[in-house]
C-alpha cells in the first residue's frame, strides 16, 4: 500500500509541475466565465444556461486531462525508460499501475474541486441558486473521469500514445451514444450492423447514465438510489478496466 501512495504522490507531483494542467484550468475558468456572458445574451432561462455551460466546462476539461494525461501514465514511463528503475524496486506491477492511476485521480479531484469552487462563486455572483443537483452532477462527472482515466490506462498498456488517445476518445464518444446504438441495432435490417451495434452497446460503457447535467441545470435533484447505482456502475466498470490493464501489463516485456 505504501508503494502505491509513493507512486501516486509522485504522479500527482509530476502533474502539478506539468504546465499543461494550469493551461487547462485557465481554460476552464474562461469557459465558466464565458457561461455568464452566454447567460446574459440569452433572453429566457439565463440561469439554466449558466449552470449547463459551467458544468459542461468542468466535464470537458476533466475529460481532456483524463485522456491526455491518462494515456501517458504508462507509455511515458516505458518510452522514457523510467519504468526500469521503478520496477527494480520491491514493488509489484499491480502496485505500480494503481499508483499511477490514483496519482492522476488525485490530480483530477483537485482540478474538479477548484473548478467547482470557481463555478459556485460565479453562480453566487450571478445571483443564481446553488442546488444540491449541481453537486450530484459534479459527483457523477467525477465518476465518469474515473472511468475515462481507467480506459486511457487500459489502452496505454498495449498501444502507443496516439492510438490510446484515439481509442479512449472513441469509447468516450460511443459511451455517450449507447442508447442510440441500441436503437440502431433494433431498427437495422442488416444482421452484420445489428451484431456490431449490439456488441458495441454491451462493450462500451454507458456514460449517459452518468450525465445528469440537464437535470442539474433545471435544479431537479436526482434520486439518491439512482446516483448510488450510477456511481457503483462507473466504479465497477473502472475496476474491471484496471484489472484488464493489469492482466496486459503483467505480461509485458520492457
Amino acid at each position, binding site marked *: 500500500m505504501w508503494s502505491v501512495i509513493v507512486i501516486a504522490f509522485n504522479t500527482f507531483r509530476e502533474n502539478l509541475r506539468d504546465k499543461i494542467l494550469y493551461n487547462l484550468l485557465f481554460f476552464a475558468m474562461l469557459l465558466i466565465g464565458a457561461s455568464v456572458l452566454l447567460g446574459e445574451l440569452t433572453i429566457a432561462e439565463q440561469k439554466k444556461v449558466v449552470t449547463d455551460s459551467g458544468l459542461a466546462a468542468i466535464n470537458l476539461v476533466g475529460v481532456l486531462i483524463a485522456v491526455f494525461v491518462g494515456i501517458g501514465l504508462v507509455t511515458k514511463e516505458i518510452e522514457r525508460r523510467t519504468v526500469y*528503475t521503478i*520496477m527494480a524496486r520491491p514493488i509489484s506491477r499491480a502496485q505500480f499501475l494503481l499508483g499511477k492511476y490514483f496519482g492522476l485521480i488525485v490530480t483530477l479531484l483537485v482540478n474538479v474541486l477548484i473548478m467547482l469552487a470557481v463555478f459556485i462563486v460565479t453562480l453566487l455572483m450571478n445571483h443564481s441558486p446553488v442546488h444540491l443537483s449541481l453537486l450530484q452532477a459534479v459527483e457523477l462527472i467525477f465518476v465518469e473521469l474515473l472511468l475515462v482515466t481507467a480506459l486511457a490506462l487500459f489502452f496505454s498498456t498495449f498501444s502507443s500514445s496516439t492510438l490510446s488517445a484515439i481509442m479512449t476518445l472513441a469509447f468516450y464518444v460511443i459511451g455517450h451514444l449507447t442508447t442510440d446504438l441500441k436503437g440502431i441495432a433494433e431498427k437495422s435490417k442488416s444482421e452484420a450492423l445489428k451484431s456490431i451495434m449490439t456488441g458495441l452497446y454491451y462493450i462500451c460503457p454507458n456514460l449517459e447514465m452518468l450525465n445528469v447535467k440537464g437535470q442539474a441545470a433545471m435544479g431537479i435533484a436526482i434520486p439518491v438510489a439512482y446516483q448510488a447505482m450510477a456511481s457503483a456502475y462507473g466504479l465497477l466498470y473502472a475496476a474491471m478496466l484496471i484489472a484488464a490493464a493489469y492482466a496486459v501489463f503483467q505480461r509485458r516485456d520492457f
Partner: protein
Amino acid sequence: MDVILVEDLTKSFNPNWPWRTPITALAGLSFSVSRGEIYGFLGPNGAGKTTTLKILMGLMRATSGKAEILGKPAGDVETRRRIGFLPEAPYFYDYLTAEEFLSFYGHLAGIDRGALACRVTELLDLVGLSEARTRQLRKFSKGMLQRIGLAQALIHDPELIILDEPMSGLDPIGRKQIRDLILSLRDQGKTVFFSTHIIPDVEMICDRVGIVVKGKLLASGRVDELVSGNTRSVEIVCEGLVPDQLSLVAPDATRILTRGRQCLIALPVPDRLEEVLAGIRRHGGRLISVTPQKGSLEDLFLSQTGIKIEE
C-alpha cells in the same frame, strides 16, 4: 555462494509479422557471479548484455533457462530489496530535484523518513552532488545524471549492485569517479555486476570477466588467467650487431629497430627464439633482454568476437 546464477538462458523476440523469423538475443547463456566480486560482463553492442540484465531484474521474461539472484528466481519482488540497479543511459523524472529524486527511491525501498534524510545527504556527498541537491535533474549534465543514477541504486544499501554500461558516454574524469566508486563498493563487501563494451574499464577493476557474443558466453574467468598463455610475440633487445647481421639472425622478424648501438627485434611467434638468440651470440652480439609480449584483454575480446580491425 553464487549471487547470480544463469544457466542455459535463452530469449527470443517474436516479430510483429508471422512471416518474419524470431530474433534470438540469448542463445543458451550460462555464467555465475560470486559474492564480493566485481564481475564485468563484456560484449560488443547487440551481444545480449542488456537483455540479460533485464531478465535478471524481472523487466523481461526469459524464453527458457534458469536465472537466479541471491538464491531466488529473477524478478522476485522481495529480493529486489537487496539489489541496486542502474539501467543504461538512464532517464529519470527530470522535474525532481536531486534530493526529491533520491527521497522518492528511498521511500519506494521502504526506508523510514528519519533515516532517509541522512542517507540522501550521505549519498549526495558520495557522488559529489551535494551542491546540486536542490537543482532539478533537467539541468544536470550527462555525467551528473549517471552519478545521481548510481546514488539511487545505492540508496537502500543493497548487497548486489547491477549496472548497465555505467561508464558509457562519460568523460575520463567521470569514468574514473565511477570506477573508484565501484572499487569502494567491493571494499565494503558488496558484489558488483556490470555490463560494458569498454575494455580498459574491465581490465582495471574487475575480478572476473565474461565475454558474451551473440547471446553466448565465449570466455569467462580472471582477467590475468584469460590473457595468460596468450603470448603473442617476443621482443629481443641486443647490441653490437650491424643491420646486415640482424636480417641474417632474424629473417622472420616483424620489426627491427636500431637506436645507436642497441637494436630491437620483434618475433611474431616465440618458436624460433632459441635459434635467434644463438645467431646473435654467433655474430658477436650481446643480449640485453627478452620480453614476451602477452596479449591484452582487447586481443582476446577481438579474437573471441571475430572482429578484425584493418591496420
